[in-house]
């Protein structure tokens, strides 16, 4: 997969990597069991510190998105998370709140927001189906 780093986004670089890998995993860009790039070549390619990549992978591992197989590297895990349903809900609420706040400032009505969420769910589903065909 190809990563895009933006130093001006205000999001720390390691979190940008985390988000892009989670996005790829959710949209079929990265499939279960597929390896992630190893740290050194990825760090060289993006010209970011190796610690940054290592930190991103450690974060993804703690979130249960990837697993490290000693001597083999990091792989995308089958869906299944160590977090409880309540913890998962809490995490999602934060993300939803962010979207709600953004919608408010962009003067998007509640109905428009809900319609958009539905549309995005369909888009991801389509991408996922396409990836598995």
């Amino acid at each position, binding site marked *: 997969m190809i990563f895009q780093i933006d*130093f*001006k986004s205000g999001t720390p670089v390691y979190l940008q990597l985390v988000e892009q890998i989670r996005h790829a995993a959710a949209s079929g860009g990265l499939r279960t069991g597929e390896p992630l790039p190893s740290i050194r070549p990825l760090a060289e390619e993006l010209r970011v510190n190796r610690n940054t990549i290592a930190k991103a992978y450690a974060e993804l591992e703690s979130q249960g998105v990837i697993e490290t197989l000693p001597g083999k590297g990091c792989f995308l895990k089958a869906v299944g998370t160590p977090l409880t349903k309540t913890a998962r809900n809490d995490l999602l609420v934060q993300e939803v709140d962010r979207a709600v706040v953004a919608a408010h400032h962009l003067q998007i009505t509640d109905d428009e927001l809900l319609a958009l969420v539905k549309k995005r769910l369909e888009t991801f589903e389509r991408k996922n189906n396409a990836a598995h065909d």
Partner: protein
Amino acid sequence: MNTDAPVIEIKNLVRRYGKHDAVDGLSLNVRPGKCYGFFGRNGAGKTTTIKCLLNLLRPDTGTVRVFGLDPRTNEVAIKSRIAYVPDMVAFYPWMSVRDTLEYLASFRQNWNQDIEKDLLTRFQLDATKKTTSLSKGQRTQLALIGAICPEPELLVLDEPTSGLDPIVRREFIETVIGAYQSGDPTRRTVFVSTHLIAEFEGLIDEFTIIDQGRELLTMDADAARDRFKKIRARFAQEPKTNLTGALRVKRNGRELEVLANGNSEQLLAELKTQQPEELKVEALSLEEIFVASDILKKAHA
């Protein structure tokens, strides 16, 4: 051994040339495994500071410690664990690339032959070539090979990529990330002084901006990008420009560009009271933060 003990520790360093204070009370700490940026304008005191680390200059007052040791009394012990790439590198003109590397290796307890071979191939350097026939880029590449093969715990870079072409600069940074950082991460610390801040942006964990020999700003890079923001706003009418605590406000017709220093939320709220048609926030890059630090300085003065 305490693994968190700073690799470089500078306290109230003062170094004068005659009556001119080149470094005037500088303090900073570099922790192991970090890549530390050292930014400043020409003549800010960067090279003088670096020379004090290497015992090429002695401090007038204040203390400098590298691996907890005083460079004045433990020069050899320190130098055996560090490597230094200056902006101008010179080699003995009668030596070939191979001779030069062998000569450099003769001072070192450890010399990684595999890295040497890899890098010679990567840079397409002909080992039989005389150093006098090397270009500036090739000279820097040779210096970098000489710095990385001993696998030093600390790599000190002083304007290493200035005057080089973009491809050589890119390879230089990739080599620091790849070949140098591939070892034990806690024993791979980089201290880099540079004006080409954008190129090193992804590498820098923490930085100090030095101005007229004094520390102007020391921050974690992510925290700095979080604190310094640029807000762009467009209004239906010409907007008011008196915003509380803005680092800088630029107006162009109905548009405003506002620099925030940790107060972007408050500035955004203030701007919103003027009903903007469009409002955008982005982080400042380290280079922009460096430029903005000039405004900070004037605010302090």
